[in-house]
């Protein structure tokens, strides 16, 4: 799965302007956020090169960032890899994310599906699984279970005595 292609599609659908910086890098921007996405085969490559990629981006866009005012605080450096060779890498990627210097970093590996890429990009996206809970009328389901006559009686009768009488008369 080409990670960059997936990432581009996701960001464009989210309203970002996305453009390729080079074969392994996308740059993106909307009214609030901006940054770049670097794709890798292995997580270990992220550990080795993320600083260089971040510096390269900041250098290249220095004038734009300087002129962007407060928006320059909203830069994301996104490093995505398809797999890991070592379990230790996961911890190293976490350490990268916890480093808040210069840019906010997203460093994720083991991205094998479009869903994985989308999840990695969650900080840039609106809530993806918004749900309007279905409003099925549960009374219909209950009516079907207990029978029309008795259900109507329970639903409408205020008097306990009369309701008890209905239960007594219903087989």
């Amino acid at each position, binding site marked *: 799965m080409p990670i960059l292609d997936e990432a581009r599609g996701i960001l464009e659908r989210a309203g970002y302007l996305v453009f390729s910086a080079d074969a392994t890098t996308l740059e993106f921007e909307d009214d609030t956020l901006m940054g770049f996405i670097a794709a890798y085969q292995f997580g270990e490559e992220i550990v080795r090169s993320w600083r260089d990629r971040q510096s390269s981006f900041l250098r290249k866009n220095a004038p734009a960032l300087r002129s962007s005012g407060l928006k320059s605080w909203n830069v994301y450096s996104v490093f995505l890899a398809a797999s890991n060779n070592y379990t230790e890498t996961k911890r190293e990627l976490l350490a990268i994310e916890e480093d808040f210097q210069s840019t906010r970093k997203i460093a994720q590996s083991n991205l094998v599906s479009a869903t994985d890429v989308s999840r990695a990009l969650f900080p840039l996206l609106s809530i993806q699984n918004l*749900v309007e809970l279905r409003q099925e009328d549960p009374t219909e389901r209950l009516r079907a279970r207990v029978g029309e006559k008795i259900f109507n009686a329970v639903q409408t009768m205020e008097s306990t005595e009369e309701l008890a009488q209905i239960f007594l008369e219903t087989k």
Partner: protein
Amino acid sequence: MRLRSLYIDGFRGALSPVEVEFGDAFTVITGRNGAGKSTICDAIEYVLTGTLERFRLDTEKGEYIDDYLWWRGPGSPQRRIARLTFATDSGEEFILSRGPDGDTTQRGVEKLYDPTKAPESPLPRLCQTSIIRDETITRFSTDLSETERFDFVNRAIGISRFDKIEERLTLVNKRLRDLVALRKTEYDRVREEAARLTSELSQARITASSTANLQELLKAVTGSPEAPTDVREFLRASQLEITRNRAEIDDIERSSATLRQLDPAHPSQAELKRQLELQTSEMSEAEVAVKSAELELSRLAAALDSERLRSARIEALAQLREQGIRAGLQDGHCPLCGLHIGEGEYKAHLEELEREIRGFNDSLTSLVTQHADAKAKHQQLRSKFEQLRAAYQQTLSRSEAAEKAYAAGRAKIRDFGLTSGTNIATVIAPKRQRIELLEKTISSLRSSLALARVSDLERQLSTVQDKLRIADFELSRASSAESSAREFDAALKRVSAEIVDERLADLSPLLSELYLRLRPHSEWAEIQYLMRGDVRRFLSFTVGSDINPRFVFSSGQRRALGLSFLLAVHLSRSWCYLKTLILDDPVQHIDDYRAMHLVEVLSSIRRSGRQVICGIEDPALADLLCRRLKMEASGEGVKVEMRFSLGKGISAECTDVVPLVARALVSA
């Protein structure tokens, strides 16, 4: 729908009017502790519900939150009012206000939610799911039990539509339970009555089976074969007669036996007479012996008296002899009589005196002994005589008493119609026959009554058995109705549970996404919810391999989990038109990394079209929020700085957040 503005005067810490214009996109409220950030949330909740849920149950020294809703410091506010302005998606505005002085306006409140979908008490539910406070997050992260969590979800997302039905079913179930108990009691009572009647009937049948020829018996007893008019009186009188006859028979038999014992011809009486004769004879002999002893005693007494008369002379002789011995012969002359006497003769005279004195003493001693013996013998004989006389008297008394009793017995026997020589059996036999007749008549009469009783009991038993059939039918009917009502209740609970299961399944991806975004734990990126229980429902969370995060997460991690849950519930409400999320200081106890995640989640919620209002103490974090929350035009984002001044209360300074440069990289 959005919150447009808030105006408070005199509410909580606001001595002077405080007005906040909310940004359509977001409002970040900042300020130190006590600056009034929470007052904004309190005012929103108060206008909608009239109370503050977080204090609702708190009381101290008899005071409640109602006593502290309004300014209590020095000075007095111009008014006491809290007012909210809402804007619908079409731009229409409406105002809700509430105050203690009748300034309450709630017109338009129904625009906030869909009444056909909303849960019971929609406004408190709206506040519970729209205003997320620090303490709410804490409660959901650590304190809330699984059932409370379930109830919260059940009510908040508007599923429970059965409240009224449940209430009615509870009452009906109780009524039918009581009815079953009542019918069971009635059935048991009738059943016991049937058993008692059956037993009585069985006994009456046994009694009735022993009926003899009653008419003949009655004729023999009363002279008439007709049954007595007063059966009870007849039975009583007959019983009395039987008792009387039995007593008379006893009396006759006892008297007869006594007479036989006292008859002079009876060996015991003859023996008594012979004993009397013997005692008379013995007494006469004893009397003669006593008299003889008296004579001997008199004789010895006289002899003794005579010897005592001689004793003076003997005494004088003894003195003379003593003097003679002491003086001795005086010149051949007796010193006692002066006669001239020889030595030998003198000595012989003295010896003669001695012999006479000794003989007297021996005779006197013998008489005294004989007299004492005779006296003792006399007393002995006298005592024996007295004993014999007493025994005789006793025997005589017995004999006289027997004669008297015999005479009385004979008189009594005569009273019973017996004369001497009559056999008492001839008197007793008719009485015995009468008793037997009466007893047979009574028994027969009772048997006759038992026949009527059998018939009566059979009729009663038939009636009671009919009643028993009816009672059984009614009991079955009530039990069946109770069972139906219980089954209805169970079906209701099952349907409720099914729907909650389905809704939570719908909610699950959202909850998972929020959990993943907040990333409370680096190891366990996924979360599952678990529901169990048919009657009491439990909702719990697990991470990893069925691990309960409550026991492995730190407090900050638990808060992040609680927050993801609360946000999921907030975002999934379909019944609520107000699209405003209000958070009061949600970042406490959260590290920078997770605070960043929270900011990004709020940014994502904002990107989803929600209005976000967030109170934050940390100014840097407030600035970060202002930068990250998306807005498209000036005025859509507002930053509110809250302050508290002594004597003035809280104040708010609202500043529009300037939109960021739309394109930086692209223009470059």
